[in-house]
């Protein structure tokens, strides 16, 4: 094996940008086969930060995450929502099969407290998944969260509203979501491990 190949095989920090990725199948299924097909781990990365930018709330970004939540809850693990932008509607959640007793909602006051509580939850072994709506967040805080998610092997999703995706992010997976009528267009801005197609369209 050439030294470069060897290095890429051994080190998960190195990957080929444009080669078709090797699907390891170790991810948390997204519940959408089209999306599973293009993601490097055949699903959401399990111990990583997923940075999602939406052009507006209400495109279907939460519905995109509900199947993953349901899987985590089926293993009796807790799901946390941190600083949601609106009131989560209990009736709708239970219509989607969310077990309300395993869902905890935290509303910290400021962005420092948001980052602190995400990290706190990632450290908890009972916490299976954390979703946060942090607003503005410093790149150093993002890096911290990515490291925490990796160390404690818990997926964390950050949802932010912006017109454009971020230029650079320490997150392992960065998605940009746009909506039209009843469709959700997902652009994969960055995926550690590479991805097949940078664009997917779903109707969640």
């Amino acid at each position, binding site marked *: 094996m050439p030294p470069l190949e060897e290095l890429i095989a051994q080190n998960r920090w190195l990957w080929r940008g444009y080669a078709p990725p090797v699907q390891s199948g170790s991810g948390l299924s997204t519940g959408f086969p089209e999306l599973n097909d293009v993601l490097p781990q055949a699903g959401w990365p399990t111990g990583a930060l997923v940075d999602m930018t939406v*052009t507006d709330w209400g495109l279907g970004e939460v*519905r995109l995450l509900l199947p993953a939540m349901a899987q985590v809850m089926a293993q009796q693990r807790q799901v946390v929502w941190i600083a949601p932008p609106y009131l*989560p509607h209990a009736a709708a959640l239970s219509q989607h099969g969310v077990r309300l007793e395993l869902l905890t909602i935290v509303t910290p006051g400021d962005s420092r407290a948001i980052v602190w509580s995400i990290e706190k939850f990632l450290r*908890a072994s009972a916490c299976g998944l954390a979703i946060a709506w942090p607003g503005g967040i410093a790149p150093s805080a993002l890096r911290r969260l990515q490291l925490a998610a990796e160390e404690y092997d818990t997926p964390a999703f950050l949802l932010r509203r912006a017109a454009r995706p971020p230029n650079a992010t320490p997150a392992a997976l960065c998605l940009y979501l746009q909506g039209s009528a*009843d469709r959700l267009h997902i652009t994969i801005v960055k995926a550690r491990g590479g991805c097949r197609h940078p664009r997917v369209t779903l109707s969640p």
Partner: protein
Amino acid sequence: MTGLPATISPTRFLERLPAASPPSPLWLAVGLPDLALETSARHMRLAAISCDSHRGPMVYAASRAARAQGIRSGMPITAAFALAHELRVYPRDPAAERAALKHLAEVLSRFSPVLSLEEPDAIVLEVGGSLRLFGGLGELARQIRASLTAHGHRHVMAVTPTPGASLLLAQNQHPDVVTDKASLRTALGKLPITILPFAALLRRRLFRTGVRTLYDLWRLPRVGLARRFGPELVAYIDRILGQRPEPRRHYSPPERFAAAVELSAETFEHAVLVEAVRHLLTRLDRFLRHRVRTLSELHFNLFHSHAAMTPLTVRTRRHTRDVARMLYLFAERLRHTSLPAAVTRIGVSSGELHASPGQTDHLFPSGENAGEDWSSVLEEIEARLGHAALTQLYLCDDHRPERAWSHRPSRGTVAGQPVCRRPLWLLDTPRRLLYCQGRLWYAGGLCITCGPERIESGWWDGQMCRRDYYHATNESGSRLWVFHDLIRHQWYVHGLFG
């Protein structure tokens, strides 16, 4: 044991033991001669405690250095100052003494369940029943002595078969051990008559008849004594000699923990406050351990000299006895509380106490105890962000969407789910929509894609609603939940299909 054959059966062995007889009562009295000094003037070398009498302020107690200069209790304060002009005098604080005595009773309750406070400065405990557990009287006394010394109290201990005799010896600084009633007379005989807890008049009359010690009293005939000095004297003698029962009021410790600590100086320093609370919580730990109790709520009060006190409450999700955790949560709460002024005093009181079920630990740590971990994370979040920051959702039995959920579990059962799809997000309050040119506007024009669903409810509680709900999409692709209010004839947006 040497006489027993090697193969004796356990039951036979038990038969050979003498029938268990109830242990004879043995009373241990602890006298604290310097309690007043220790509570009011602990770190002062040359100090005296004053109390008021009909002749003006008097010395109630004097420190060792003061006694060396000739200061005695019962002396007028002015005379004491004449002997030592640099003497520091503190007024007596009976409430603090009582609190200190109760605290000691708390400490000693580990040695015996039968315990009584003898105000102002003694405690009596029945130790006959505890001898076996602690391995004999010597070992028990050693442990009691060690815990009293650890709390910095000078003490005198006496053990006799009657509480009265033990008290008499201990309060008058005659440490002694008498284990059988027969030798009680001899042991008490040498005590002077002046120390008996009688009125001064009676003591003087006894003294005038030539009675100097208790031994003189033993020699006088009972009938004559009763006739000349009243039946109380005879009754008292009978009680201390154990010829007449002497019921005592048992001290039953309070079922709620409350303690306070006065800081030596006003402070804002968190480290000092946390250290003070650590001391309080050590007492809480002992309190909980002795009662086999747990708690889930602790109230702290931080007192300031010129501002209203600051209350802090620490809650745990489970009933616990883990004071280290409580201390951590307190420190965390303190860090996020702004104090209006420097703290002078800290009080702590427990919430309701709960019986502590035994705990089983896992042999191998597994995912099963992840719940513990989870509740402690929630506690830490609550301690830092406040109790309101952490919520859960519950369904409520109501058709109005804003009342179909709650942060608290609802009473009664939830009958069923709405048939139509509900949005994942609700707005706090519905927001008005613009309706013009036959179109709805909300950050761009809206297209209605689905509906209507009529929700008409609440006529019984004054919050009547009659609404037609529709699904709508805006230009950026967001799906909204809008309704037409049929009472006010207005359009509103109520939620988003996130």
